[in-house]
Every structure is written in structure tokens, then in C-alpha cells.
């Protein structure tokens, strides 16, 4: 009698994968650096860091929840940058919508870049997780 595949077995990720994913989220590129994937770290981390820094240079600001539900989606995007979001949050820096910055022609590009930096880092974080879990080479 042949064995029937039930499809109920679940692949579990090792603790290392969660650690690398968390490291990659906290510091963009760190999840790959810790696994010796220097090229990927440079490309993925570099893209995230560049977006984040350019976002501030262009006059952007970070989002936080202030009672308005519309602030939550961009905040989730910003949060993807890990410590790049958390540190300014604790320091109270980068969240104010300064009138002078808002007058810049690149103001909206700025906060868009800051959100995209976080979203791209979510992808980089998942990549670091998958590599550590053995799902990718």
C-alpha cells in the first residue's frame, strides 16, 4: 500500500533565521552581513540607507500615530527601517512637519523615500530570513 501525502507537515524555520531576520530589520544590511553575504548586504542595505538619507535631505519626515487612522499605513512603512525609525522616535527627531521643509519642492518626495526605505527593508529582511532558513542560497 502506498503512502499518501497528507500535506499537513509544516516546515519550521530555525532560531537563526529569526535572529537574522530581526537583525536585518533593525539595521538594514546587517542580516546579510552576519551571514557573510557582503554583496547582498551592500546592495540591499545600501539601497535602504540611501533612500532613508535622501528622504531626509529632500525635506521628508517620519510618521507616527497621533490619533488619525490615516497615519498608521505610512507609519508601518516607516517602521520597516528598524532602528533608523526607532532611534529618531526616542530622540523626538524627524517627525515634525516643518513649514520651511514643507515649502521645498521635494518635500513629498522626501517622506515617500522614507516610507519606501522601510518597505524595501521589509523585503531585505525576508531575504535574510530565507537565506538563514536554507530556502535561498
Amino acid at each position, binding site marked *: 500500500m502506498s503512502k499518501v501525502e497528507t500535506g499537513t507537515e509544516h516546515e519550521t524555520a530555525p532560531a537563526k533565521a529569526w535572529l537574522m531576520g530581526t537583525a536585518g530589520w533593525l539595521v538594514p544590511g546587517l542580516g546579510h552581513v552576519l551571514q557573510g553575504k557582503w554583496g547582498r548586504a551592500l546592495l540591499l542595505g545600501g539601497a535602504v540607507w540611501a533612500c532613508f538619507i535622501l528622504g531626509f535631505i529632500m525635506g521628508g519626515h517620519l510618521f507616527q500615530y497621533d490619533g488619525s487612522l490615516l497615519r498608521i499605513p505610512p507609519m508601518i512603512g516607516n517602521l520597516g527601517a528598524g532602528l533608523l525609525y526607532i532611534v529618531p522616535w526616542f530622540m523626538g527627531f524627524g517627525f515634525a512637519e516643518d513649514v520651511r521643509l514643507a515649502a521645498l*519642492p*521635494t518635500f513629498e518626495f522626501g517622506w515617500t523615500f522614507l516610507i519606501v526605505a522601510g518597505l*524595501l527593508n521589509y523585503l531585505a529582511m525576508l531575504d535574510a530570513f530565507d537565506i538563514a532558513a536554507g530556502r535561498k542560497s
Partner: protein
Amino acid sequence: MRHFLVMTVFALAAAVVFGVVAKDSPRDRLLYGLKVFAEFLVIGLVLGWILYFLPF
């Protein structure tokens, strides 16, 4: 920064991440990254012209 330059930088960053994450071999990554980069630029320019002619 000029708007087109900003769009190009945005497309470059997104294309790099998409290319590295989505494909396995270096050649596939490069090709996919170039494709994503070109798509961002072309679609951005097309949308820009469409919006230019809209009266609202």
C-alpha cells in the same frame, strides 16, 4: 534635485532590491533589475504625460 533625477534614484533603489531579492543567479538578477528599472521610468513618464493633460 530635479524631479526626473529623483524618479531615477527611486527606480534604481527599487530595482536593485527587487532584482537581488527576486532572482537566484547573478545574470537573472541583473536582467530583472534592469527590467524593473526601465518599467519604473517608462510608466512614470507615461503617467506624467497623462496627468499633464488632465484638467483637474
